[in-house]
């Protein structure tokens, strides 16, 4: 899932690219959400007494519950969410999917064992590992979102890549996902924790790609190569090269080709028939619908339609659903207010005294600056 240790590398080498803040700071912003990631989270996290939410007829409703209330939470904060669903997986991902299936089989075995032993905690743990989003659940959620007036975008291939294309085209401000490869695909801004429950009180974490590249002093291509070295969904990595080494190697040699020419292949086992170049191509030119042409329209919710679906078919509490929809309507009105910083773009960063002075003094160690002498306090 995602890029291994990328958030750690960013933390170490580009801390200024990460900002934390409240959800309400994003009011008026359009955000593309990786639906599969969100759904998976809901199935894992939206639970009661450790098991998934179910209605009277035993159908799982965690995904609808999560999608409904957490989407409303965003809209209530003035955000305009659009959900992007995965299309067919790229064939490059077959290896990764195979690995995931193996893990699932393993978990299934362990689950059976745990059940036999009666180890409730282990049962719970393995059950969570077995969670996967079914096709029906995907369709149910799409139906709900359309009733709520929230745009649903069907990606031809990877949702992450489509989100990035929307962000690049300026159709949305950011991609909201937990998956770091949204950055590798070129999302200008990545938002984490957007679909988390309010009760968790998790601040929204914003990662700005331009700042990451500036602080890493890397081009987009070099960054993609770094991500491949760290470990992505599309091909294996060189054993023995961890995050620290990978960062140093890209800084020094600029590309995987150069690195392969330089490193001791006896020491570092390069995978056979390593398809890094195809993975790179997938990140740089993924199969997506042109961001410019994707229509996204936020509509008024079909209140009766939502009530008929959630309460009529899925046994949700009508009172709660209606009050949440009322909240959403209010949020939508607030969401109409434009942001001044979406009209005027940031021209420069201002640093006030005395921090500016401290900074200038640090700079002076290198270059002697003109200007009035600054007296140092001992």
């Amino acid at each position, binding site marked *: 899932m995602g890029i291994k240790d990328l958030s750690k590398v960013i933390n170490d080498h580009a801390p200024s690219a990460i900002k934390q803040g409240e959800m*309400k700071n994003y009011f008026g912003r359009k955000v593309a959400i990786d639906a599969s990631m969100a759904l998976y989270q809901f199935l894992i996290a939206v639970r009661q007494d450790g098991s998934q939410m179910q209605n009277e007829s035993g159908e799982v409703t965690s995904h609808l519950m999560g999608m409904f209330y957490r989407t409303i939470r965003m809209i209530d904060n003035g955000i305009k969410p659009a959900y992007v669903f995965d299309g067919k997986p790229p064939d490059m991902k077959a290896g990764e999917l195979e690995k995931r299936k193996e893990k699932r089989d393993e978990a299934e075995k362990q689950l059976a064992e745990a059940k036999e032993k009666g180890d409730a905690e282990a049962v719970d743990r393995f059950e969570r590992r077995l969670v996967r989003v079914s096709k029906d659940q995907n369709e149910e959620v799409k139906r709900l979102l359309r009733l709520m007036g929230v745009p649903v975008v069907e990606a031809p291939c990877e949702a992450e890549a489509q989100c990035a294309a929307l962000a690049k085209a300026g159709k949305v401000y950011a991609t909201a996902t937990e998956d770091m490869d949204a950055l590798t695909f070129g999302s200008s801004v990545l938002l984490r924790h957007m679909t988390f429950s309010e009760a968790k009180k998790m601040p929204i974490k914003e990662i700005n790609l331009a700042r990451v590249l500036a602080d890493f002093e890397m081009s987009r291509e070099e960054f993609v190569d770094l991500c491949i070295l760290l470990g992505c969904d599309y091909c294996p990595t060189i054993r023995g090269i961890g995050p620290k080494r990978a960062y140093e190697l890209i800084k020094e040699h600029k590309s995987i080709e150069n690195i392969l020419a330089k490193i001791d292949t006896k020491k570092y086992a390069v995978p056979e028939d390593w398809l890094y170049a195809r993975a790179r191509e997938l990140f740089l030119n993924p199969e997506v619908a042109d961001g410019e042409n994707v229509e996204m329209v*936020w509509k008024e919710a079909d209140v009766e339609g939502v009530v008929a679906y959630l309460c009529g078919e899925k046994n949700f509490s009508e009172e709660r659903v209606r009050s949440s929809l009322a909240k959403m309507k209010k949020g939508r009105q607030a969401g109409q207010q434009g942001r001044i*910083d979406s009209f005027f773009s*940031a*021209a*420069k960063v*201002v*640093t006030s005294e005395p921090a500016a002075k401290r900074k200038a003094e640090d700079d002076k160690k290198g270059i002697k600056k003109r200007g*009035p002498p600054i007296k140092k306090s001992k």
Partner: protein
Amino acid sequence: MFEAKLTSASIMKKIIDSIKELVTDAPFDCSEQAMCLQAMDSSHVALVSLKMEVGLFDTYRCDRTINLGLSLASMAKALKCANNEDTCEIKYDDNDGDTVTFTFCDTKRDRTQDVTVKMMDIDVEHLGIPDQDYAVVLEMPVTEFKKTCSDLFMFSETINITATKGAVVFTSKGDSGSSVITYTPSKDVDSSEHVTLDVKEPVNVNFSTKYLLQFTKASALSDRVKIALTNDTPIVIEYGLNDNGHLRFYLAPKIDDEENNMD
């Protein structure tokens, strides 16, 4: 070293009082030409842009471009100590470390008072505001604009402004009723109460009444207010500072493009 003296503290008081509820702390950009301030409100909907030119000051000295980060609440506290007729000197010395000194002097009573305000570390993005020709420029007495905003605020949180060649119309529609105010250019341009209107292109835009009303707190600064509008662009409300600068408010429009797409 930065040193600037105003003949009367009242102008500084009025400026800070009119923006302190919008902006909590702000970086004052001091250069040889002017003392400026640009800051967004906490929700990033409005932008305050202040320019106090050298001509506004009695004496002005700025050796190098510096940026003073100040809490407006602390500044307001300091200015509260000053009488309106007092002179007001703002001073920052590189050797002082992290404080700005305000000196208020009552010349009649030979009394001076120094108030120091601790500076804050501010690291903010400065927005580039493009120079642009607005489609509509409207000018009127500040009292008139204030009344319009407070009248309309009673009906709705949203104000609609439309302008055509001959008139500009402010509309506010609420559940209980609505109010429509129309301005046409005054015939008697010599009257101090006159309204001027210049329309290059018609506009139709929506804004938050609450914010517009908030801006009218600056009405004490000037007799006239200038309002500039273009479709899909922030509105500009400008209060002049004795021909030596201005206090401008920019407000992002409300966008209802989604509603239009409803079937």
